[in-house]
């Protein structure tokens, strides 16, 4: 009888720890990992990451309610203009739950780069992002070179340096 009881208790504890282990297990991508592919609706047709292989891709996860994201837009517009000829492609993945919020934001601050919409946050989960905005610099081989969390004035210089060196790197 006593051992029976012990077994039941053990089972209960095991089930409990099993359930607990599911909470908060999101892993971030590390430099060198292959960037997970995505296919999302965009402003002009669908946006697919695997179609950009051969160019350096800067994937930025943003939302209309996020302050630093708002500041990053002018910089990303400038970067896209400056390095377009060298095959840089900036993809802004919007994570607003409501698509209208994103549209309103874009009407206010137009994006001169590719914008994709992921209202369910599936790609954000895949990329394991820990804060807004998070950006990934992906090399011509489709591997993550650099990951950056947040956006400040002081970040601009080092980010551009990273982009430059990625563009200059051999295939």
């Amino acid at each position, binding site marked *: 009888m006593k051992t029976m*009881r012990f077994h*039941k*208790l053990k089972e*209960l504890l095991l089930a*409990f720890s099993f*359930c*607990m282990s599911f*909470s*908060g297990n*999101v892993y971030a991508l590390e430099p060198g990992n292959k960037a997970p592919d995505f296919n999302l609706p965009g402003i002009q047709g669908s946006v697919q990451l695997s179609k950009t292989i051969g160019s350096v891709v800067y994937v930025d*996860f943003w*939302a*209309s*309610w*996020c*302050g630093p994201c708002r500041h990053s837009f002018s910089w990303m517009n400038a970067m896209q203009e400056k390095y377009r000829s060298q095959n840089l492609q900036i993809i802004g993945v919007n*994570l*607003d*739950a409501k698509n209208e*919020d994103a549209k309103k934001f874009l009407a206010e601050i137009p994006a001169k780069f590719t914008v994709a919409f992921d209202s369910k*946050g599936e790609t*954000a*989960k895949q990329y394991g*992002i*820990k*804060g*807004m905005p*998070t950006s990934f610099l992906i090399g011509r081989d489709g591997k993550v070179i650099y990951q950056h969390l947040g956006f400040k004035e002081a970040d601009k210089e080092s980010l551009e340096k990273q982009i430059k060196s990625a563009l200059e790197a051999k295939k």
Partner: protein
Amino acid sequence: MKKDVIQKSFYAVLLMCMLGLSGCALGTAVQPWEKATLARPEMTFEGDKLDNAYTEHIYSSKEGASGGAGVGGGGCGCN
């Protein structure tokens, strides 16, 4: 028969204790991209400027020192 009931209720209480201890950890955590509502200005302590100024006024009046709510050098009279 009675023992059975006691045992069952023991497990029920144990399970409830466990769920209570785990709190909201059993549910999925709010992800960074799901914080749209939390990012709204009215969700902060300083959401309303007028209300904030009013509260600060009362506070410094009660403290008896202007700048008691965070301005450097307040209080000692040396700055």
